[in-house]
């Protein structure tokens, strides 16, 4: 039996519902030494900024039970170098590209979106309004992350929407009391999809020195330890919006990914587990197909949101 794995985000068709979480896959080069990365539904690249960024001082990573904290601080090559040096590789491979963008203000987000569309630099844009390791100093008192304010999410979404016709994905932060509000705000302001979750703010202390283990003091928690919370949030948002949800948070195995699909995610992303197993995205993809076959689903969309509550 053949299974259709195709899913749609806005007017973009992905050949299957598996991608990777931004920041865990670089620009694809390293992983292509392990497998043909064009097999994935999409490659979501590391956050791009207008100018290259050095990121935070090390140590940037600390392991925690069933997960890890990171405070990379968006070290990246910048949009120009991406377009010149990273994009051709991904295009040559035939990848569908989701470009994740980060701006320090609204105009930067707009510019990034315009540049990506003009240079054919992406097939969809994911707007990072939720990196926990950088702050827009102008809003620091009021709102450390754009994604923590439904009002700002709306304003940023609408502004980027004005500048691009590419499918627009808004990446949400789980560091909120209610994740439904910013999701609805993104939908109302023209987003084609929302992706969640970004990492949870956390910290870890070396009790011998009494110093934080991360130089940045706090960082974003990822890995299987966050999966149940991420799953709950994906379920809540999927019920509340009509646009596709890209679900992520601690997905390691096909079973984890299928949970997200059942909860309502149309696309799933493997995140920091690729650090442990570079083949994880492919295993997840094959496992989803196998699950569809075993459960008589001709189309993966039959699984999406199929949660039974009785």
């Amino acid at each position, binding site marked *: 039996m053949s299974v259709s794995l195709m899913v749609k985000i806005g007017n973009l068709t992905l050949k299957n519902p598996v991608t990777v979480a931004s920041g865990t896959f670089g620009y694809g080069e390293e992983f292509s030494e392990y497998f043909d990365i064009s097999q994935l539904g999409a490659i979501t690249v590391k956050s791009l900024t207008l100018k290259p960024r050095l990121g935070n001082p090390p140590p940037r*990573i600390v392991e925690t039970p069933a997960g890890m904290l990171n405070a990379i601080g968006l070290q990246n090559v910048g949009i120009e170098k991406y377009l010149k040096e990273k994009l051709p590789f991904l295009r040559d491979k035939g990848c569908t590209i989701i470009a994740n963008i980060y701006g320090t203000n609204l105009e930067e987000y707009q510019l990034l979106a315009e540049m990506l569309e003009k240079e054919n630099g992406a097939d969809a844009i994911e707007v990072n309004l939720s990196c926990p390791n950088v702050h827009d100093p102008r809003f620091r008192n009021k709102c450390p992350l754009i994604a923590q304010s439904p009002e700002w999410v709306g304003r940023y979404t609408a502004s980027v929407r004005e500048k691009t016709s590419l499918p627009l994905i808004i990446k949400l932060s789980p560091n909120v009391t209610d994740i439904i509000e910013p999701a609805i705000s993104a939908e109302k302001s023209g987003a084609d999809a929302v992706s969640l979750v970004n990492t949870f703010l956390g910290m870890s202390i070396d009790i011998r020195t009494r110093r934080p283990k991360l130089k940045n003091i706090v960082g974003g928690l990822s890995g299987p330890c966050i999966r149940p919370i991420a799953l709950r949030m994906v379920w809540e948002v999927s019920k509340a919006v009509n646009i596709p949800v890209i679900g992520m948070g601690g997905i390691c195995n096909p079973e984890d990914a299928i949970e997200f699909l059942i909860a309502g995610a149309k696309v799933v992303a493997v995140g920091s587990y690729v650090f442990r197993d570079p083949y994880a995205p492919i295993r997840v993809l094959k496992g989803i197909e196998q699950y569809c076959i075993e459960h008589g689903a001709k189309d993966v969309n039959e699984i999406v949101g199929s949660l039974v509550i009785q």
Partner: protein
Amino acid sequence: MKLFDCVVTSHTEVAPEHFRLVLKNKELAEVSQPGQFVMIEVTETWDPFLRRPMSIERMFSDSISILYKVVGKGTKLLSSIRVGEKISVQGPLGNSFPIDLDFKDFFIVGGGIGIAPFPGLAEKIIRIRGGNLHVIIGAKTHSQVLCERDFREMGCRVYVVTEDGSAGEKGLVTDVLDKLKVEVHSVVYACGPIQMIKKVHQICEERNWICYASLEAEMACGIGVCLGCVVPVKYEIENEMMARVCKEGPIFDTRVIQWEKI
């Protein structure tokens, strides 16, 4: 670089809390170079979540050895792995020690478990150059002096130094290095605590010697994507002022490191 299932063919406690693990895999052994490292999966569960980066100690025809110290949960779990069991090993990763034939004398400086990447390097230098290899082994105390016999058997000139003076000289590896009369055109290979490497670097700077250090860093992926293991460098390496220990390293010419930021 790939993922390999390796069979543990030997696993011995070489000193209190220090182990040597021999991993059988011909393909891995054949492509590994001194200075490179592997990422070892120490558990099938998710705690710890990440693999453990470990220097390759020596390369044999069909296996590699790893020398490690139990420092936390991951290495504790690793230490319980028995001969005959299989473990997942990713590698070889990173760059390797450069061996420039112009150098007259070669010095290896290893502090504590920092000696781990050097037996394989010593073997290669002796194979290529036939001698003139000096090895300074530093440890806290006599029971933790590692690989002394291995280096002597290879024909290296070995200097042992312990912090408590219970074996060899009393002091630090840098004290020994400082006192050595070395010709210009010598190269020093160093690995150990970062402050030790910094001091070795300073000694080398003063005397115009080259120093290659194997650096250690918290890392998640080992292949260059997570950007967790960076060190600040003075010049752009691969377009970046933050060099990845896993990719541009782990071996660095210490002159490129921005030491004031460490």
